[in-house]
């Protein structure tokens, strides 16, 4: 089944947040802090206000009225303190975008500057142990004794991996268009991965009852986590529109997105692994060092995959966080699993070489019977089958295991493998299904951020009702529809699909309408370890003169329960793998240690994969029956594609060159440094 919104997307008719025709719309442009830490002494908007078309200047000189509950990045202009370079400190509103931009440039901000600290270090004196890590996992876990496990090991490794600041960079910039009606009800067209949660947060921030706020996000131009949290532009648009008495539109610039829409924290990860003579793990220790801002504690769950992956008598995982004068990190595709599995799966490769074992065999030997940390049974786990199927498809049996042996002219060739995993969870959701002129209208406040949710949910409803998909119409992306969780954590289809199936069942009983709320159903779920698994295989060519790494083959084999829509699923897997390739080879935002804030704040300097970088990536899956998940038997697929990709590519670079780059991205400079 093709994407239902395909026609409107290819003809330019799909309306994204900033694209709704609204009478009398005005434009707001934010002003960003030029220091990383300190206080605002004075903001002078007089020159700006005198410019043509300018309607208002908003700043902490005259703080706009917000609820006492307004917090963190959304408490706009409430404080004179500056928490990071790039924070919004003021905004200009004008009749046209050109006038607003010019006025924002004319706002004068004077600061009293303090010394800032923007550098993550594993020995930072202010590192601490947060109570939990995102989204509520224990910060540290210990089982058995790692030190004696390492002492008893025949082979052990102790390595440090680092990953840089990474930015989500969805193609559609974060935007909001706010309209107040005569009754004081607020409508925000927002770039939101979830309209229910966005509505709740906007209402709370503005001190409005939630019935008085409506958020609409019919089409969202990608998010990858960065639109899962309500961003300042939504609140700023609402404040500005209230102030000038006209609708206000804000579209963040690509550069502004780097500062106020979240990013993946840089990580420093220490891995200590030990194995006995047969390759059985005797100890696994994974410690992650990460940063957050002084405004918000966001602690990425980087070391949690080690709690899931391999059998070991001694397992310790830990996270340490330091609050710096930096922007607030947040979700980016597979937070936790993505950077954590890069380090764990690279370390497993190192251990395989150290122990003289094939990297697939090392993983198979350490396949656990139950979830290593919790001891819970898996609802299903097909990691070994994915590794075996991938090996067969990739031609792994013909692989010469030795590093730095294969050449084609000046190119060195290598292959690598890594496992991937991602939790298969679901959240409570509501849904409503109504008979309408012989067809079925399915309504819920789900979001389609490019995942194909509309299409997948149409298929689920059609199957539950026993009717052709053409008779099902899914309406989503509007907080006035039944409450639904956001598109995140690979939980969307599982959460929304469950509610739709239950609503369809209710309709079959009732005849004309069915409603569902899955809160109670999900509370009754048996305690099981629910995860999708996969295996990534990469082949690279590394230039011995320039250090350039070219990805020549990439294969992902996944086991993610029942695949709801094969066509869209393949696109999701390939898309995740493409982003993982960017993480491996090119993506990196620099922190400006002298002035604070970020460098490389655009797409000319922050390199995401372009068409010529990407070979014919292949993604396949194993049919997995799992009755312990949800009515569809499905596991989420939006994130697992990125997990493991960077490790597979890094492992292939080692196999090609005999050198291990442990600091992403694997740039030509780093490769050359190791080779010469």
């Amino acid at each position, binding site marked *: 089944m093709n994407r239902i919104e395909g026609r409107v997307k290819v003809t*330019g008719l799909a309306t994204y947040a900033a694209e709704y025709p609204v009478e009398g719309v005005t434009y707001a442009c934010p002003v960003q802090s030029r220091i990383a830490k300190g206080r605002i002494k004075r903001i002078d908007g007089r020159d700006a206000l005198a410019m043509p078309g300018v309607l208002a200047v908003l700043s902490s000189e005259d703080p706009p009225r917000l609820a006492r509950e307004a917090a963190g990045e959304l408490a706009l202009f409430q404080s004179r303190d500056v928490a990071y370079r790039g924070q919004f400190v003021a905004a200009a509103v004008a009749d046209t975008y*050109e006038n607003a931009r010019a006025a924002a440039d004319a706002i004068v901000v004077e600061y009293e500057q303090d010394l800032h600290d923007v550098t993550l270090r594993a020995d930072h004196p202010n590192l601490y142990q947060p109570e939990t890590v995102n989204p509520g996992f224990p910060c540290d876990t210990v089982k058995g004794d790692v030190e004696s496990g390492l002492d008893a090991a025949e082979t052990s490794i102790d390595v440090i991996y680092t990953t840089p600041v990474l930015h989500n960079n969805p*193609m559609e910039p974060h935007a909001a268009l706010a309209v107040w009606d005569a009754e004081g009800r607020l409508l925000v067209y927002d770039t939101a991965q979830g309209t229910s949660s966005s509505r709740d947060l906007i209402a709370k921030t503005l001190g409005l009852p939630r019935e008085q706020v409506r958020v609409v996000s019919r089409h969202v131009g990608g998010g990858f986590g960065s639109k899962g949290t309500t961003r300042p532009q939504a609140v700023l648009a609402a404040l500005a529109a209230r102030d000038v008495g006209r609708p206000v539109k804000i579209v963040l610039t690509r550069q502004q997105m780097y500062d106020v829409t979240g990013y993946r924290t840089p990580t420093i990860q220490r891995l200590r692994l030990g194995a006995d003579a047969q390759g059985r793990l005797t100890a696994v220790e994974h410690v992650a060092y990460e940063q957050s801002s002084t405004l918000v504690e966001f602690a990425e769950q980087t070391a949690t995959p080690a709690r899931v992956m391999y059998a070991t008598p001694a397992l310790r995982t830990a996270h340490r966080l330091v609050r710096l004068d930096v922007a607030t990190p947040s979700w980016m595709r597979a937070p936790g699993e993505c950077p954590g599995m890069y380090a764990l799966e690279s370390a497993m490769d190192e251990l395989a070489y150290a122990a003289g074992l094939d990297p697939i065999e090392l993983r198979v030997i350490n396949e656990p019977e139950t979830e290593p940390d919790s001891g819970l049974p898996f609802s299903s786990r097909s990691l070994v089958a994915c590794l075996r199927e991938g090996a067969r498809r990739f031609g792994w049996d013909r692989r010469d295991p030795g590093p730095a042996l294969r050449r084609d002219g000046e190119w060195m060739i290598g292959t690598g493998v890594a496992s991937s995993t991602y939790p298969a969870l679901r959240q409570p959701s509501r849904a409503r299904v109504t008979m309408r002129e012989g067809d079925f209208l399915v309504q819920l406040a789900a979001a389609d951020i490019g995942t194909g949710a509309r299409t997948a949910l149409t298929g689920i409803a059609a199957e539950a009702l026993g009717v052709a998909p053409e008779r099902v119409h899914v309406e989503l992306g509007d907080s006035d529809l039944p409450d639904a969780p956001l598109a995140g954590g690979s939980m969307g289809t599982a959460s929304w699909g469950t509610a739709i199936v239950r609503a369809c069942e209710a309709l079959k009983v009732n005849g004309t309408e069915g409603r569902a709320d899955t809160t109670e159903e999900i509370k009754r779920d048996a305690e099981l370890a629910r995860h999708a698994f996969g295996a990534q295989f990469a082949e690279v060519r590394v230039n011995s003169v320039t250090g350039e790494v070219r990805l020549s083959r990439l294969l992902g084999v996944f086991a993610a329960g029942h695949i709801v829509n094969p066509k869209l699923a393949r696109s999701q897997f390939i898309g995740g793998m493409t982003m993982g390739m960017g993480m491996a080879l090119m993506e990196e935002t620099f922190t400006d240690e002298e002035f604070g804030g970020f460098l490389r704040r655009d797409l000319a300097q922050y390199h995401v994969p372009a068409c010529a970088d990407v070979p014919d990536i292949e993604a396949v899956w194993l049919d997995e029956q799992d009755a312990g998940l949800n009515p569809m038997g499905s596991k989420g697929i939006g994130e697992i594609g990125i997990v493991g990709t960077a490790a597979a590519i890094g492992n292939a670079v080692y196999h090609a060159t005999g050198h291990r780059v442990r600091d992403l991205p694997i740039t030509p400079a780093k490769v050359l440094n190791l080779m010469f």
Partner: protein
Amino acid sequence: MDITLQVNGVSRAVDVDPRMSLLDLLRERLALIGAKKGCDHGQCGACTVLIDGRRANSCLALAVAVDGSEITTVEGLGHEDDLHPLQAAFIEHDAFQCGYCTPGQLCSAAGMLGEPGPSAVTDDMLADPGLTPEEIRERMSGNLCRCGAYVNIVSAIAEVAP
């Protein structure tokens, strides 16, 4: 300043701010939201349109500088009930996810199909390279897609390429 453009075959006379880009003119004044703003700096290609038949980043063109030009946006390539072959192929090959880069990819592909000559990956500068997948990847690299739909974009364009 008063300018006149042919947009998707229709003559449009508009009074524009000299600071206004062609992209903002299309989106904010002419209600043609197909051309997308992804970076506003000519780095992502989401705003690609055809200016006098050649593909160009509309964010890098000032509206006043294209006075008298013929502009084709994605809305002018085809219609919902009468798709351009590229539009139909993009749907069939699932060559997009979020759809935000898609209008730019489509306009870029439409322009690219008519561009003669070798590219950076062409071995024989004198022979017609033909639009192999490698040539398509090279020639479409000015249009970023963060969802990672390149594999399907290349197969969709290859189906339409002569």
